[in-house]
């Protein structure tokens, strides 16, 4: 019922956009001037600039997995977080149907150690270090590619680029002129719709995307979601060298939260909002000469009201108590960046940025004030080729923030082309993870009404004397690359030494509660392998990771055990697709994750294997390009995501899309 109502509403919007498209097209039709010498001698806007070009895997200073549109499409995934199942060493877990975890090791629901950038905007939230994956105002259809750095990369991307960096790059609106309509229905109670229109107005290319998503989540969880998003991007060409890009996005969401049968964490609704505005001014003076100034603002709001039932807890009779959660997180960020070539052998990328994080969270901070955190950053990366076959990448970021003071994160990598197609890379890199606001100054208690008066039940407490987590990574990688055959493979051996791992430690006096402390030193060693092959109409992506987790020291056995089990020893993913002729495309994904237990509300999970399949058919509908696709997720046995209540049974999804 809900689905049909929402789809009807989309239809109205399609009508409006259809009209705009028609009028736009007739007004914008220019008269083509005749050929002249200007066609040969005139200027052309700089398009493929340093910031747009993909760095070849064999020359990047870190291990990189590029997820492109073909991979996103053929994987059949509906949610953005799922695509990171394709990255070696990355773990994706569904805490609920509407809360996904994407992690690069020491997998934890909270306190993310992976930086996530959406067109340069950092989207992790400072309170818990989470990424609001389900609420991000971003449609998969608008993504050009995702570059995932495995391992720390703070020298380039700043603090929290600790166990990895996800860099999501959206498409330039000039690539998608026209209108796209897409719908999707399937399990569990899933009904999505999307309308996108992109066009041109003079020197402005623009795109607006509207989308709706809803589903019922796992059967045994209160985790349904209904989200409505709008996002837009405009690229204005000022002249052939200068451009202005602006973006905005807004999601309004209703998420199911809490556990069935729980007295103090029972089922309830969460109202969430996530929005951003961004502006980038860019000047390109040559292929290697670029300057940009970027400003963005992000805002996240989570609001819940939960009334407990009356229940008995130990000696206390708890009366119905209203627990109100309000969490506002806002970020302002200004950045200047410069890319330049100083000599034929030396390239630099440097810049500075300033950030303000503002949090208001009375429940978690124990007061009604607004907490501000400032951060200043300076970074410099140099790429030097002393001889043709050797590339030296050296960089460092200097960072100052209100929580930890000043720190330096350096990186050095040497890439040596042993022979054409064969590259050896050795690197060492250091990074910090700044503690989240909760870890630093959290004061999270709940005041319950009881028959003997109000009772303060403590839960989590920050610790202002914490040191940031630090990581030193050493890696050795071999890359075999045959671009003319569309083949590339890389094998990365690494050792991560993580110091001062922050963990909540249980205190029992008189109630059980948690205080954060630097509780462990952990070393992980492993091998990550990635193979990519495109042979005409067949494409293959393979990823394998072996991880060995060694607890060097831990505050207590519980902390050691949590960390030990947080990494699966092996993960495998495989994505294979083939195009039959012009119309038919078939693909298959295979995902295998060994036994593990995620820190932060996880449960011990057995090894699982999951097979997804997708079949898509392209056809013409009233002269427009259309595609119908059927996706089967987890074809075989059910498995558990994150917790044993989260049974992932076979799911079928059908999509229909049309471009005109």
């Amino acid at each position, binding site marked *: 019922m809900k689905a049909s109502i929402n789809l009807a509403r989309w239809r109205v919007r399609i009508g409006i956009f259809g009209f705009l498209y028609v009028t736009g097209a007739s007004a914008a039709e220019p008269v083509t001037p005749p050929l002249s*010498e200007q066609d040969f001698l005139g200027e052309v806007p700089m*398009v493929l600039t*340093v910031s747009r070009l993909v760095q070849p895997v064999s020359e990047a200073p870190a291990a990189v997995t590029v997820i492109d549109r073909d991979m996103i499409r053929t994987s059949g995934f509906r949610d953005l977080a799922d695509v990171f199942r394709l990255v070696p060493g990355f773990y994706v877990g569904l805490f609920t149907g509407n809360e996904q975890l994407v992690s690069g090791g020491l997998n934890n629901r909270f306190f993310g150690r992976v930086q996530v950038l959406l067109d340069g905007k950092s989207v992790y939230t400072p309170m818990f270090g989470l990424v609001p994956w389900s609420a991000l105002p971003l449609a998969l259809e608008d993504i050009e590619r995702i570059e995932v750095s495995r391992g720390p990369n703070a020298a380039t991307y700043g603090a929290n680029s600790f166990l990895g960096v996800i860099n999501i790059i959206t498409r330039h609106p000039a690539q998608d002129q026209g209108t796209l309509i897409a719908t999707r229905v399937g399990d569990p109670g899933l009904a999505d719709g999307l309308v996108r229109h992109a066009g041109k107005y003079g020197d402005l290319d623009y795109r607006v995307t509207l989308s709706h998503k809803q589903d019922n989540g796992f059967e045994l969880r209160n985790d349904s979601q209904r989200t409505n998003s709008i996002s837009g991007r405009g690229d204005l060409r000022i002249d052939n060298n200068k451009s202005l890009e602006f973006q905005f996005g807004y999601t309004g969401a209703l998420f199911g939260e809490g556990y069935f049968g729980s007295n103090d964490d029972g089922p309830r609704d969460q109202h969430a909002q996530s929005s951003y505005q961004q502006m980038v001014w860019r000047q390109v003076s040559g292929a290697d000469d670029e300057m940009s100034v970027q400003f963005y603002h992000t805002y996240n709001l989570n609001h819940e009201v939960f009334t407990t039932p009356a229940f008995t807890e130990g000696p206390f009779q708890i009366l119905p108590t209203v627990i109100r959660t309000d969490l506002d997180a806002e970020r302002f960020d200004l950045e200047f960046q410069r890319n330049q070539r100083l000599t034929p052998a030396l390239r630099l990328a440097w810049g500075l940025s300033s950030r303000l994080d503002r949090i208001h969270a009375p429940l978690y901070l124990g007061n009604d004030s607004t907490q501000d955190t400032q951060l200043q950053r300076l970074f410099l990366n140099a790429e030097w080729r002393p001889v043709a076959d050797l590339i030296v990448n050296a960089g460092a970021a200097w960072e100052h923030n209100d929580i930890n003071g000043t720190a330096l994160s350096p990186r050095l990598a040497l890439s040596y082309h042993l022979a054409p197609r064969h590259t050896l890379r050795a690197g060492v890199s250091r990074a910090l993870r700044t503690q989240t606001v909760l870890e630093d100054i959290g004061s999270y208690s709940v005041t319950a009404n009881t028959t003997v008066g109000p009772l303060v039940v403590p839960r989590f407490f920050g610790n202002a004397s914490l040191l940031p987590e630090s990581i030193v990574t050493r890696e050795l990688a071999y890359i075999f690359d045959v671009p003319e055959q569309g083949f590339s493979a890389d094998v990365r051996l690494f050792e991560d030494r993580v110091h001062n791992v922050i963990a909540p430690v249980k205190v029992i006096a008189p109630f059980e509660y948690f205080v954060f402390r630097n509780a462990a030193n952990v070393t992980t060693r492993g091998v990550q392998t990635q193979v990519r092959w495109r042979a005409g109409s067949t494409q293959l992506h393979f990823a394998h990771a072996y991880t060995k987790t060694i607890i060097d020291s831990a505050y207590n056995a519980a902390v050691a055990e949590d960390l030990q089990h947080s990494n699966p020893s092996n993960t495998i993913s495989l994505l294979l697709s083939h195009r039959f002729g012009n119309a038919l495309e078939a693909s298959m994904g295979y995902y295998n994750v060994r036994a593990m237990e995620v820190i932060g509300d996880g449960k011990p999970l057995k090894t699982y294997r999951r097979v997804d399949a997708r079949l898509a058919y392209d056809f013409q509908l009233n002269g427009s390009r259309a595609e119908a696709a059927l996706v089967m997720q987890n074809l075989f046995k059910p498995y558990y995501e994150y917790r044993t209540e989260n049974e992932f049974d076979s799911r079928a999804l059908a999509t229909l899309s049309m471009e005109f």
Partner: protein
Amino acid sequence: MGLAYAGPQVLVVLSEDGVAYHEAAEAMRGYFQGHDATVSLRAIRAVDLDNSAAAQAQADILVAVGVRAMQDLAMDARPTLNILVPQQNFELVRPPSKRDSRLFSAIYLDQPIARRLRLIQQLLPGRQHIGVLLGPTTLDRSKPLQKSAREQQLALEVAQVSSQEEIIPSLNQLLANSQVLLALPDPLIYNQNTAQSILLTSYRAQTPLIAYSKAYVQAGALAAVFSTPAQIGRQAAEMVMRALQTKNFVLPAPQYPKYFSVDVNYQVARSLGFVLKDEATLLNQMQAGAERE
């Protein structure tokens, strides 16, 4: 002005005041100074043609730089060499019967198609499927292009577009069957408004664009063979000198540029995973083959 000595007089008429036009004129002047100081060169703008009757009257040979100057001089009876003009414009402007090429000749801005295909072969050996988008201006190029491609054992994929909206859909289909995209100058297809989407689309398909101008290489095309205004100016001076040595100032036949340059965007090449020869080596190999054109 008022020089008593009456050596041959060359009048160079510039379509506009732009850098390219002056660069061509200066290259001619430099050549004459180095080879025959008796030749005097005078450069004026096309807009000033009406005010400089005296200078015009003295000129033995006219050199029109650019399309506008070519149009303005088309009816002049004296031998006229047109430079910095696309071949197509020259053929449209040339008065059919009145003049033979000895009186109205040209150095085209276009590179011979064989030369452009040879760049692809030198740059990307093994890439044999060449995609070409043709628009209203370039539609008639299809046949000579096919012929030239056959001679060099390349397979040509052609897609035609008649409006700007068709470019990206046609390009997407074309790229599915092409290993290289060869750009032919057509104002409907390649202009300031479309450069962005074409370059991004071909880059995403990992299909390099072989362009026809230096600016396109800077913008993100993989490479181009082209002639600079100075190179064309030098060739123009050589043609004028040859004409001056004949009795009635007979100009050589219209021709393609003799001197040319090759530019490669190595950033794009690296990103696409190509290991390419350096520009000097490419240019040498291209020049070695130029005699056969």
